[in-house]
């Protein structure tokens, strides 16, 4: 499967993230990081993108019914869109609060579920938006300059 599309002025990477596939969490972020390295983007920005993508990947895998991560590199801007197939977040303000988490014991055993994921994605990115329709989907958009 070819996840990488390039045309004249932009590069698009798109990766599916499966629900509850714990062993594969991080594969997409790892690939994203490798491709950004090849594009000669500065290391500190790659690091911020990698952390945010990984946190998002963890979230999609552990909380959702599955979804995808799409990274678009246009000129000097990196945009990440993360969208899942639900079940959506009832209260996004509450979800953004540090320490708030609905993660299961299984997820906590993996070292996650501390309620730091969304705040950390916001911290790492230059622009961050979260949109969710409860019962339908959650979509994150992040920009890195």
């Amino acid at each position, binding site marked *: 499967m070819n996840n990488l599309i390039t045309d004249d002025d932009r590069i698009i990477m798109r990766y599916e993230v499966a629900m509850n596939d714990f062993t594969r969490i*991080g594969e997409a972020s790892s690939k994203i990081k490798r491709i950004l390295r090849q594009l000669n983007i500065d290391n500190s920005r790659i690091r911020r993108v990698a952390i945010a*993508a990984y946190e998002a990947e963890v979230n999609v895998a552990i909380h959702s019914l599955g979804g995808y991560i799409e990274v678009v590199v246009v000129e000097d801007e990196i945009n990440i869109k993360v969208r899942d197939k639900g079940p959506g977040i009832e209260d996004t303000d509450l979800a953004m609060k540090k320490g708030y988490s609905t993660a299961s014991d299984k997820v906590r055993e993996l*070292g996650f579920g*501390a309620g730091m994921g969304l*705040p950390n994605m916001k911290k790492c990115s230059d622009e961050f938006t979260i949109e969710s329709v409860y019962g339908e989907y959650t979509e994150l958009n992040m920009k890195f300059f």
Partner: protein
Amino acid sequence: MAVDINLNLCYNIVKYITNNIMEAIMELEKVLNLIDGELLIGNIKRSMNTAFSSDLMSDVLAFVEEDTVLITGLINNQVIRTAEMLDLKAIIFVRGKVPAEDVIKMAEIKDITLLRTKFTLFETSGILYKNGLGALKIYHE
């Protein structure tokens, strides 16, 4: 008597400076000896000057902002993924734990050095801190 006290004071000041201000650079080879550890994979000729201990990868991702040694009791592949995203070069597994072969293999591919020790998280951190490895400075909002 007064001289004795002053010497002791000088000794403590020097010790404080070396421990807290100069942040001694320590080779992983020395780390390995201090914690009576075993090298699982990777290069021990790397030098580090700080360490961060946690079993919570969420916190590692949220707080670590520079290259440091990660000390943890967690041995799944997400520890390696976390290190990879943060560009960390070394991990110490404590409490005698050994990760699975595929986890070690992943670290090898990512060029991350893995050490293990029988000591607890507390003891491992204490030994290394006492010998001059610095703490990561964490800034809260």
